[in-house]
């Protein structure tokens, strides 16, 4: 794919943390896990709109800071008893840089 956009170095995101990226689809949170993998998801928790980039990251999940909904960053699915899903976007790490797929951010997200 040729439409990867470099959004910055991995170091810009703290381990087990996230940063926001503004996109035409709204705010996307780019996560870095404890083992240095990156994921991009819609920053809005479907429950009450909590900012997921501020949640605690554990394994490859994030816990919403407002009401502790836990989402798998790879599938976007809510874990445990909660039901819901956040949009996920292609993200990858190459040569220490974090890349997002531009095409996915231009297209409308699949309706959840």
């Amino acid at each position: 794919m040729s439409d990867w956009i470099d959004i910055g170095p991995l170091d810009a995101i703290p381990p087990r943390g996230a940063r926001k990226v503004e996109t035409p689809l709204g705010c996307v949170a780019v996560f870095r896990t404890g083992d240095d993998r990156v994921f991009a998801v819609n920053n809005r928790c479907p429950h009450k709109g909590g900012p997921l980039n501020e949640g605690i990251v554990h394994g490859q999940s994030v816990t919403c800071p407002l009401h502790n909904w836990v989402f798998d960053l790879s599938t976007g699915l809510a874990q445990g008893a909660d039901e819901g899903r956040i949009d996920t976007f292609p993200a990858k790490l190459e040569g220490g840089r974090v890349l997002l797929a531009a095409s996915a951010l231009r297209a409308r997200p699949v309706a959840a």
Partner: protein
Amino acid sequence: MQKLVVIGAGMASGRALEHLFDTQPGEWDVTLFNAEPRGNYNRIMLSPVLSGEKSYAEIVTHDEDWYAAQGVHCRFGEKVVAIDRAAKTVTGENGTVAYDKLLIATGSNPFIIPLPGHQLPGVVAYRDLEDTNVMIEASAIPGAHAVVIGGGLLGLEAAAGLRLRGMEVTVLHIATHLMERQLDAAAGFLLQKDLERRGINCILQANTKQITGDGKVEAVELADGTVLPASLVVMAVGIRPNVQLAKEAGLAVGKAIHVDDQMVTSDADILAVGECVEHQGAIFGLVAPLYDQAKVVAATLRGEEATFVQKQLSTKLKVTGCDLFSAGDFAEGPNREDIVFRDPARGVYKRLVIEGEKLVGAVFYGDTADSNWFFGQIRDGADISANRDTLIFGPAFQGGAPVDPMAAVAALPPEAEICGCNGVCKGAIVDAIKGGAVDLGAVRATTKASASCGTCTGLVEQVLASTLGGAFERNAPQPMCKCTDLTHEDVRRLIKSQELKSMPAVWQAGAWKTPDGCHSCRPALNFYLLADWPLEYTDDLQSRFINERKHANIQKDGTFSVMPRMWGGITTPDELRAIADAADKFKVPTVKVTGGQRIDLLGVKGEDLPAIWADLNAAGMVSGHAYSKGLRTVKTCVGTDHCRFGTQDSTGLGIALEKALWGSWTPHKVKLAVSGCPRNCAEATCKDVGVICVDSGYQIGVAGAAGMDVKETERLADVKTEEEVLDYTMAFIQLYRENAKYLDRPYKWVAKVGLDWVKEQVLDAGIRAQLVERFQISQSVYQKDPWAEHVKERAEQYVPVADLTKFAAE
């Protein structure tokens, strides 16, 4: 006879020639160029040669005699200058030779970071025998220091070897844990502990700035200003395929020389093998795929069908006494599940990663038994769904009866030690139980078993169960979270008794079942560690709830509230003006006077936080910590200054208390009040600590509540002076910090431990002085304005890392 020219006598080409001569002896006229003035040795065994545990002679695989016996024309020590593909010749420094087939095996060059000073004598890569000999020579100088840049496989082997040779060794690694490509954080942590036990100093997230020295290496300087003396610097940060010749010859080269599945390059008569090739986008550094390639090269040369297929790889570290193993892919993923097994007593960590019905990855530390079997399961993609529950125990358990832990404990002999901390054997526990200690608490009280670190609690319970049979009712204490079986109290005991000073250390010692905890245990652990080890432990922001990470209260719409500190509830016109200006400037929708005598600005946008803080800082105000599990407010009445009933300077005392306590982290929030007389206008009798001024001095009450529960304070002590109020309060807060469960308010904690015990501690002058001292040590680290710090050092974290709205919209 066909003419074969080989460039490079390394492990891959050596193995390829071996295969060729095995099957087609005498059919090839081979010329072998090698830049190194010798034959082929097992490069991956250089580490034990470096350490002195093996000799060079033992790792030679093909010496000149071997090549001579195979009729190979060896041109060792001679560099190849050019390849002429049209004429089908290779030109070396000493002349040209023609080929029918050419095999390029030029390997790789070590990657040298072009730091200032990288060309100084004493900076070496760790790649070949020459490098190894330079390192051995450097280690002969008494007391010499070495710095190894790169905490990967090769760097760590170099570090261990140099240490065994007698050097003082520091490893600098850029990532957050060692060998991050092969290990997860938990195993990386254990490896680091193991290396540190050997006297090897490891610095993670280390940014090397430059190498300094006058004519030779003398020191390595890090970006944070640290200077490490060094007479030897080893760079082990990676390899670069050596593709110069191939490129000049016009072969297709990407990251390395492109080869197809038959190891043929873009020229049908030229093959390539080893670390200089790129196959389907991948390049190769480990030996197993190189040997697979060598087989394919030999077959292709023979004109036979063969296909190189990339396979799963496994890693072992050649450091004597470090048992680790990793294979496959152990990143988490959708439909992936972890099985984590930790044995804190043996320092064992095992993690299996299962995807669907298959084992896809494994990381083992401290116990590598059956690693070949696990590797086989990964490589073969075996269906493990039938035995997944016992999979982690290895092949010996497969197909057998499930293990009954109770049976194991019942079978232990009386002299078997159950509690390692206090040296209590099973017999002593059984005797205690027969003597009437029929629950865990009683066993703890009579034998001290499980009374220290608590990791044997489960075993003690099993002894109770096996001794008492059905009469034992396990009073299952609530574990901290799903990651561990230990309670909060167990974990606090463990952290203190085993002096655990990092989160991975707690995960390992507490046999955590997840790789890195969850949102429930991480904030608690972060608090326990910073409360017990203020000087050693570094606060981990990523383990804090948002309010404490952002130093502001998140509101339900995702905006934040900002509340500056007003010491004792006292403010000035200038401060009020600055607050009003900030409210205007940042369009704060709501301004509220709080119950704690503060002014709260509600509805501030996340990205505006650093700016509004900077403005309030400029007016002399600091964070009010209205968001923290820490000291919130000290509420006061006006006291003797203005009130006709006031008996003491309650406002001044409140300010003094707030100045002493602010910035401290506590298990839950802490609110204080000081009332100037028993009329109690500051509502001191329902606070965590409430001081009432009377004519004779001060009454200190603790453990009040006015939230979900309402409770009056209980009298801790009556004292005469303000200094005593400060000391008693600090001692009480510190006792609470050191002993309470995370998220227990003081009244809950006091109810658990009893006010009498709290009094015994705080009223004892010696203990009180120690508590105050420990509190002040902690304050020396943590009493700082987070607003100023964040504005200065972390402002960029508050804004989006990128704005793609324009770019992506096109």
